[in-house]
């Protein structure tokens, strides 16, 4: 049976909070949200519930669903920070002047090799970005995508590159 099948009887806010506490706690622990961020997410969701309590039929399901969504967004947002950091680091490497030292040359070769192992679409996007210096809007025009689509695809490709860098180690260290 899903949560949809269990409408909750009306109770006071205090009773409601007592009743949902174990589920909320379990959710934050399961998603490993640090306490400071737990406070922000929980306060935002509970305030929204307070303002719209009259129009929400099953507040427990609403709250748990909202918090789960916020926890996922929290992690996606943090993952994005990771991709942005890798992107910035790669852009720094490729922006170095020509005729780099041996270490720099190795780094570029490894980066090329990492990009070459990604799917075709990511290869095109990341090559335009790192080898030819295209901005996202220029890539969108060149590849015929909308601005929104190119940004989503770039993000996915950065995720794939980051995975190779952080998780599978295709670079020099494992050669």
């Amino acid at each position, binding site marked *: 049976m899903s949560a949809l099948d269990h409408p909750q009887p009306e109770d006071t806010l205090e009773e409601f909070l007592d009743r949902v506490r174990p589920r909320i706690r379990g959710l934050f622990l399961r998603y490993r949200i640090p*306490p400071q961020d737990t406070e922000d997410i929980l306060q935002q969701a509970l305030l929204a519930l307070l*303002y719209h309590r009259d129009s929400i039929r099953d507040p427990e399901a609403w709250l748990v669903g909202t918090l789960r969504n916020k926890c996922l967004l929290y992690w996606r947002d943090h*993952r994005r920070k990771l991709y942005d*950091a890798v992107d910035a680091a*790669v852009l720094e490497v490729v922006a170095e002047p020509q005729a780099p030292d041996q270490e720099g040359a190795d780094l570029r070769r490894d980066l090329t090799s990492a990009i070459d192992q990604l799917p075709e679409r990511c290869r095109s996007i990341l090559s335009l970005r790192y080898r030819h210096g295209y901005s996202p809007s220029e890539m969108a025009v060149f590849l015929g995508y909308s601005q929104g689509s190119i940004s989503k695809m770039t993000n996915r490709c950065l995720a794939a590159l980051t995975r190779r860098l952080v998780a599978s180690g295709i670079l020099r*260290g494992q050669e």
Partner: protein
Amino acid sequence: MTENHPAQPVLERFVLGHLPAAEMRQVSQHLLAGCSECRQVTAGLWEHGAQLAARVPSAEGIVDRSACDEAIDRIFHIILTRESEVARERAQGRELFEELARHPPARQHLMVSNSARFLSRMLCEILLEQAHEAGFREPARAVELARLGVAIADRLAERSGEKGGEGLKGLRARAWAQLGNALRISSDHAGADQAFETATELLDPVRITPHEIARVLDFEASLRRDQRRFVEATRLMDQVIAIYRKLGQRSLLGRSLQQKSLICGESGDSDGEIALLRRALELLNPEEEPRIFLAARHNLISALCESGRPREAFALLFHTRPLYLKQGDRLNLLRLRWLEGAVSRGLQRYEQAAVAFREVREAFLELGLDYDAALASLDLAEIYATQGRTADVRGLADEMLEVFRSRKIHREAMGALSVLQKAASTERAELVLVREVGSFLRKARNQPDLQFTPIS
């Protein structure tokens, strides 16, 4: 490659995206330089982060349980304190709304724009609720109320500064969407498009609850449906349905399925429409939401009729009749009578159908609901055309044209009725043409710019 390896906790925070931006970049550079030792550590940490980001939370125990409990306690305390404040704000909001309502619309705008007293979140919420309600009865009033809501929401955000304004994005997005919806109902599609553009820009999933996002997308789907952009409307409704399912909102899920069924119906997918209405009816509670439940039943009976299943429609109508009678208001009883006519027509009981359509038509004219009267007239004309009574078809077309002309409403609908009138005057008003005009009038109701081009 540098020999200064980041410590394990630093690598962990790096993988979780928890380090400040500069440190994130430093660790990236270190890994990019090919440090196999550190990559071995990050590879182990990656999987966990990937699970979290991919909705498969598994690991527990890394966050301090007592710290988590303390955080929850603190917020519960704040919320319990806020409860009475919100109740007070709500009462004040109602008083402010009543005060506003005592003045003419132009004055209301001045009051909202110039007086800090009216900068109340609750007043804004009440205005949006009232705009929604007015949309069913007084479209112009709905626009005025929504505009007041937008003015307050925008001013509240402006006053709160950048950080506080972020927290009001949800309210602003809903206010702009409510305005877009009111403009849609008033047939101002260009204005509605602009309002939804602003509402969509404010849809920041980090700051806004999924419920608020669903509200905005739901309204936008209605606009796209009216604009006959069915693919977009369906995509938006699918998002809304997914959100309400995740939030466990049974009733809202039922309403969304009902909304989606309208898109199917208007795009000609009657099987899809019927299937969605049946699912919606399973989720809607007739005790809690009798009007919405009845609307879904009404639409289902109508769809069954239109898809050539009048016997099923007849059976369902028999079971639904008590719900109409329970509602008891004149409009609902007229809708029932209209539906009885349609079911009788489906069952080829033409005389019964004609009596019902005639009654409905007269009642709509009496109530000043000319457009509905025209639609009922066309249903009646369809019966006459089936029976070869061309002179009666012409009589109906003459009468409806006269009504439309005298009230100066809906130029394109008048054009379509003119075509029917001319055809009838030369004895060429065939059933196909009557149906075409009827179908056009139904579509053109929400799309005044739609042009009538007869195929037959």
